[in-house]
């Protein structure tokens, strides 16, 4: 509660000499774990989230390997192999969704960048921010427990020594009655984890909304906000309105499983379809919790690295909000075959298509932004262009699934697997990487190696398409998903896909090694390595502890001309006069 009016006396680290940055201004592990500095919290999020990304990735490679042949790959007995596969794909999904994709961009980049971009000293409620970080770790601990238990039991430990259950074989969707009546007890721990993670997400949302509303400095009108902030705002709205429903769903599922309350479990008169409504009311908007911030990142990166004013600012901004709101009207399209009434199906199908339009608007605007630009093929730009490719394809294949009659044929097959990987993984992952490479110099004051970064990105792009494009074909031929074994004639698809996954892994390893290398050997980064004009590039890299010694004055965030390339120093320098003229005046971008 204290967060509303932070009382004095909460000092967590020593006073420090001036002129240093947020990384160095205080030392000791405690100064991190209890830091109220949004930048440090962002960095801590980064460590945790990247770790869980690694775990999820390992699961992905394992399950692709299991599918290399129709028969069992890792173990001699079919039963053991199927069991292994079911647990693997479930944990891959659960870890990737709840621990990686949902928090990735808002929690890491959002926390680090939002206040700086906005020109604020911190988020509105720093303690709430820290609490949400702890919640994330709390949830992560539950999942680690499930994971560990699963490994131990697989290694031959007697399950009775794993209180609260081991492993998870429900699929990340926890569909009843399987999750309530059949699945391993790991479900319980996992649900608790999801519940706690939900809080982390909600608190972040509260914080971002309050920050964007209350902490905008002079000149930062709504329509001078960088598009990344618009995207984060839309995301926060979804986090606020959808996540609580996930929380209550989790609670009811737990009660169903432990007490048998008979709300979801048909054996007790419950209704499994009701569960699906509950689940998707959160989990569809959750897809936009993933993609909206990604879109925001892309807007920043494309404009900055094309050295070009973003095209159609207002349309991109409004489309973010439109997507956020429409995302609540489409959850039923996950249930077209479940026995939902045809009326509901029709309505949900219609709204589903309506979401396609703002997405299309964004894509066209991004491409037009490149027109007459001065494009640099930096790693962020390569990632952003990959995003455009994958998002266009992922988005358009959504049309197959939105169309009722086609949905009936391809739902529950590899077609849908491919589709949501193109959108949730391809697009979001590449946007995430673009953002990481874009703001890395700001975070750590080190440049990354462009060549190896690009090599990694392109490898990843190739590997990704190798893995998932083929799955569209397999799916349209009727290869059901979540199959541990499959009919002979699908073997070739699975083998290509598996090889692709290895290539992906290679690309990712390259990309992260490159980041690591820049930490150790990278050359020092100037305040504004890209010549972008959003406020985050107006402060030093890495930023000082409280971001802006003097409160910045916001101008047109995409006015690239405000920065001139200075040959002697080999740096972008601010054109003071131009900055002045723009600052304080109404931005020109939105009257046309």
């Amino acid at each position, binding site marked *: *509660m204290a*967060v*509303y*009016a*932070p*009382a*004095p*006396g*909460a*000092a*967590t680290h020593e006073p420090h000499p*001036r002129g240093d940055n947020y990384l160095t201004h205080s030392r000791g592990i405690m100064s991190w774990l209890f830091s*109220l*500095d949004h930048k440090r919290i962002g960095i801590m999020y980064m460590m945790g989230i990247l770790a869980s990304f690694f775990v999820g990735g390992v699961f992905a490679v394992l399950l692709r390997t299991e599918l290399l042949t129709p028969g069992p790959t890792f173990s001699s007995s079919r039963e053991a192999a199927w069991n292994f596969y079911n647990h693997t794909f479930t944990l891959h999904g659960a870890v990737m969704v709840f621990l990686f994709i949902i928090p990735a961009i808002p929690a890491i980049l959002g926390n680090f960048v939002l206040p700086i971009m906005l020109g*604020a*000293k*911190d988020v*509105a409620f*720093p303690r709430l921010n820290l609490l949400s970080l702890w919640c994330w770790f709390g949830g992560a601990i539950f999942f680690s427990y499930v994971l560990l238990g699963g490994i131990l039991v697989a290694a031959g430990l007697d399950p009775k020594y794993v209180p609260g259950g081991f492993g998870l074989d429900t699929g990340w969707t926890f569909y009843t009655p399987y999750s*309530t*009546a*059949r*699945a391993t*007890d790991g479900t319980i721990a996992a649900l608790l984890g999801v519940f706690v993670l939900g809080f982390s997400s*909600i608190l972040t*949302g*509260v914080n971002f*909304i*309050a920050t964007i*509303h*209350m*902490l905008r400095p002079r000149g930062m009108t709504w329509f001078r906000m960088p598009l990344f902030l618009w995207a984060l705002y839309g995301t926060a709205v979804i986090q*606020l*309105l959808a996540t*609580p*429903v996930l*929380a*209550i*769903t989790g609670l009811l599922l737990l*009660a169903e499983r*432990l*007490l*048998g*309350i*008979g*709300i979801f*479990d048909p*054996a*007790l*008169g*419950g*209704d499994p379809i*009701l569960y699906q*409504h*509950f689940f998707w009311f959160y989990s569809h908007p959750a897809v936009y919790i993933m993609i909206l911030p990604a879109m925001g990142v892309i807007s920043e990166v494309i404009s900055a690295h094309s050295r070009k004013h973003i095209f159609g600012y207002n349309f991109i901004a409004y489309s973010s909000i439109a997507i956020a709101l429409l995302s609540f009207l489409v959850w039923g399209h996950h249930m077209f075959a479940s026995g939902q009434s045809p009326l509901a199906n029709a309505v949900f199908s219609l709204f589903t298509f309506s979401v396609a339009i703002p997405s299309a608007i964004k894509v066209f605007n991004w491409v037009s932004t490149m027109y007459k630009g001065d494009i640099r093929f930096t790693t962020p730009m390569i990632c952003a262009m990959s995003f455009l490719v994958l998002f266009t394809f992922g988005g358009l294949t959504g049309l197959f699934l939105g169309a009722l009659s086609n949905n009936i044929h391809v739902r529950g097959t590899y077609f849908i697997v491919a589709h949501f990987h193109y959108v949730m993984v391809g697009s979001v992952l590449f946007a995430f990487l673009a953002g990481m490479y874009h703001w890395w110099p700001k975070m750590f004051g080190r440049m990354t190696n462009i060549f190896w970064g690009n090599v990694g990105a392109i490898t990843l792009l190739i590997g990704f398409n190798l893995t998932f494009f083929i799955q569209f074909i397999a799916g349209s031929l009727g290869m059901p998903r979540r199959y541990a074994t499959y009919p002979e004639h699908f073997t070739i698809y699975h083998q290509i896909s598996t090889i692709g996954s290895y290539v992906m892994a290679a690309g990712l390893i390259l990309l992260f090694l490159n980041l690591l290398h820049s930490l150790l050997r990278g050359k020092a980064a100037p305040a504004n390595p890209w010549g972008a004009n959003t406020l985050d590039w107006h402060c030093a890299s890495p930023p000082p*502890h*409280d971001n802006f*010694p*003097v*409160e910045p004055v916001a101008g047109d965030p995409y006015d690239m001309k405000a920065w001139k390339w200075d040959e002697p120093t080999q740096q972008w320098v601010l054109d003071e006069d131009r900055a002045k003229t723009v600052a304080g005046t109404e931005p020109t971008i939105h009257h046309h």
Partner: protein
Amino acid sequence: MSELVDKQRAAVAEMGDTFSPKRDHHVHPPHLAHHFDTPEQQFSSGKLGMWAFLATELLMFGGLFCAYGVYRHNHPEVFMYAHHYLSTFWGAVNTVILISSSFTMAWGVRCAQLGETRKLVILLALTLLGGFGFMIIKGIEYAEKYQHDVWIGAGNMYHKNYHGDHLPQEPPANQPDPTMDLSGQRAEGEPFASPAAEARGAVGGAGMAFEAGRPVPHDPNLPSPAAEGPQRLRRFGPEWIDPHAGTGDEARIRPTQVIPAGLAPDVVHQHEMELAYAQLPEFERDRISTFFSIYFVMTGLHGIHVLVGMGLIAWVLFRAWGGEFGPAYFAPVDLVGLYWHLVDLIWIFLFPLLYLIH
């Protein structure tokens, strides 16, 4: 303007860490965090944040109201029948208590704004008292239900997996010990295990294992319950026990006792209950436990919120005692107040929906 900038420069130069008190004392009024410029800004941020949080609370309860809506929509008779177990009297009393505590809270905020610390402390104490009163009465209601096996999930006597676990050792006079027709299944134990317990055995098990609770053959062409003859028509009264008890699966899920005495002082006569129960379609009777599950989940979650609210009020009370609040700074009182009002607001809906079904 420049003078402002200088001021800020000075401030920054002084800044130690985020919330170092000495910094605060130099350039900020007390309680003003470094990243805010004015108390107004901080106060409205707090309010905005609180409202955003309250919105999430509403959505969370929204899920429960949704479940309620679906089941009431699908089984109106069940709700009609089962709500007689809830005491309108206690419900109404609790409503009044909660409203009153809401009133004292609002009044308390007013006092905080006007700096009337002593009144503030008293009012907060009264509010806290209201919270206690509410929880005590809830406790009484729960306890009575528990004693009579009107409990959540499998602890409910109408539940398929009912064990009679919660029965008092000495069954009340004028009621036969329901365990009599439970003994049969007690000996067997296994088939009525809770879904969770069942799951352990059943992972990878065969289809039929699922019906452990209640067998369903793969073939639907069995004679329908109606056609099965009189032994399925059951009377509902204490003095009569099913001769086939223990043979079928239903003896164990059929309560043989009337409404627990004292549970519903104001309404029900056993006569009405018998009619109501007899009027329920056979398969609807299995849904009665669902009503109680919904009742306990909703009131339970609300109760947890009341407890949290009480904790917060106690915290504010403590700070008010220390005289921290006044016209300049009363955000915590106001925000805790908002939370407390929301708890009240939710109960305002729970009361008619659960207790006053007509």
